[in-house]
């Protein structure tokens, strides 16, 4: 899968320092090791904007200020955003969070500020990760920031680290599952006796 580095979408605008835990997604999903997007999507930004999940559409952008995704590097929110084919435009992001988002296939462009290019909730923007050009189609304005680093562009083109790993497996067939192999996780584990079974 080769994904485009150019995206057009409708914006949801947030402020500075939106944390991952209790901001993008409740900590409970991280410690619960939940990775199924279908389970996560209804809870995206729920802690700070309870109606977000009812408004977001596939392909939308999250536009945020400085230090987006601060705090503990828990990426459940990014899994949900990537599954919705969203993008992020923000002022800055902690390094670990940025690489976490990219690894999930969520494109992020940093270096934006509202002074630089005003963007309001609901505006439609067009962003090129490759050139750093941002066009606000609704307000008919544009500005540019530093493009996405080349190493990150490659990951996004592959749809995230998973796409890259598929390519690696093709080149290293000795690592492939043998035909007929059964996942050890599919074995039925006969434990049904404990109270509070989850």
């Amino acid at each position, binding site marked *: 899968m080769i994904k485009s580095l150019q995206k057009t979408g409708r914006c949801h605008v947030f402020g500075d320092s939106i944390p991952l835990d209790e901001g993008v997604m409740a900590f409970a999903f991280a410690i619960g*090791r939940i990775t199924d997007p279908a389970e996560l999507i209804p809870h995206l930004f729920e802690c700070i904007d309870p109606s977000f999940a009812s408004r977001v559409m596939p392909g939308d952008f999250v536009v945020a200020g400085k230090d987006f995704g601060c705090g503990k590097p828990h990426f459940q929110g990014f899994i949900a955003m990537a599954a919705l084919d969203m993008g992020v435009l923000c002022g800055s992001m902690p390094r670990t969070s940025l*690489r976490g988002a990219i690894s999930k296939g969520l494109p992020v462009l940093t270096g934006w500020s509202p002074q630089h290019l005003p963007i309001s909730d609901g505006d439609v923007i067009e962003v090129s990760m490759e050139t750093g050009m941002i066009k606000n189609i609704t307000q008919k304005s544009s500005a540019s920031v530093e493009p996405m680093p080349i190493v990150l562009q490659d990951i996004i083109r592959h749809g995230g680290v998973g796409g890259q790993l598929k390519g690696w497996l093709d080149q290293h067939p000795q690592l492939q599952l043998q035909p007929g192999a059964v996942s050890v996780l599919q074995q039925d584990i006969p434990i049904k006796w404990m109270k509070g079974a989850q």
Partner: protein
Amino acid sequence: MGKAEQSGSPSSGRAMNATQKMFARACSRDWVTPGEVVYPDPELVIVHDGFVETAYKELTGLGYGRITTPEKVIFLTDHEVSYSSQRAVERGRNIRSIAKEWEVDQFFDVGRGGQGHIFPIESGLIRPGMFVMCYDMHCTNFGAVGALAMAVGPEVTSVLATGTIWTEVPHTINIRLQGQMPKGTHARDIGFLLSHGFASGRWAFNHDYRVIEFGGPGLVGFSLAARVALCNSITEMGVANVLFNEPPPGINVSGVPDFLSDPGATYEASIDFDLSHIEPQVALPGGPDRAANVADHVGRPVDHAVIGSCGSGMYQDFVDAAEIMRGRRIADRVRMFVVPGSTATAKRLANEGLTQVFIDAGAMILPSGCGPCAGGSMGPLGPGEVSIATAATNHTGRFGAKEAEIYLGSPLTVAASALSGCLADPRKSLQ
């Protein structure tokens, strides 16, 4: 305390800081430049029980039947040790099956090793000069012995599949410790103060994804436990790693590769930090950067107290706490958990009579591991309750209930507070 300034000598030729040296060695190169992207070859890859199943699901979902270098991989169980749910029992069984299928022989199952950022240091699995990659961010503890452990998070699946991952060589900030810590203070207090300084922009440098390298005369006399506590208490700020520019105390460094910065090595910034006037700290609920003098919060009632976890689970931490608790009883309304960082430390505490001190005081001994800090799967905190702990972090919900408050402190502060039933200044208990 000084201000940020550039240091390092341009005339030093190829002088390298410790980070550059360990990266260069892992890349089979003579030199790396901070900021460049490289693909280092780690000596070990460590994954804990919270992520083994996820990594397996992701890789088998992509069609992987094997991992690239199972001989370098360590699985360890520290987050949920004494299973308290059916899911935990299932997870334990699955991890055993995955270890077998992927031929991961270095597997420290429940009761075998202990907390994954403590026991590898004590057992010698982690040695000075090593370059390793780990799932969990608190692997920065390994900097205490002069090893560089890069936290790769969920991307450890890439490392398992391919043997490496793209990594930016981090810049290094040099913190020169000056003076001596007053009695009753602890390396964790330094960590909270520094975290607060970083978060509040006190110094004119960016700490995000930087290696913090400690040096200076103030470092003399730091135990290995103090180094671990310092590494741990500044990690949550998003630093890439923590190192020390002196050999680790009590560790044989003969024959290990060079792991110290060269004289004249270049740092992105340097500051002096005076230890001689610091006071015991607590990190207020919400994050380790929310440092405040304990003295300003004395009297806040606590329900729950914890010594241990990756924050302060070394033998010396329990010796320090026992000095305060010996012959005393914790307050009636407090439940206290002692979590040895390793099974070896648990044995030593028993052999040397310290377990008795804690039990006599009314504390409970948990199995070696993360204790309540892994989401409260053991010894959780209920809604409306207050804890004082040596844990790595005190973000919302970390010990269970979201409606609870977690204060962080040193082992001394936790011990003093458990005795009094309220946040307490350990200097008074040591008088």
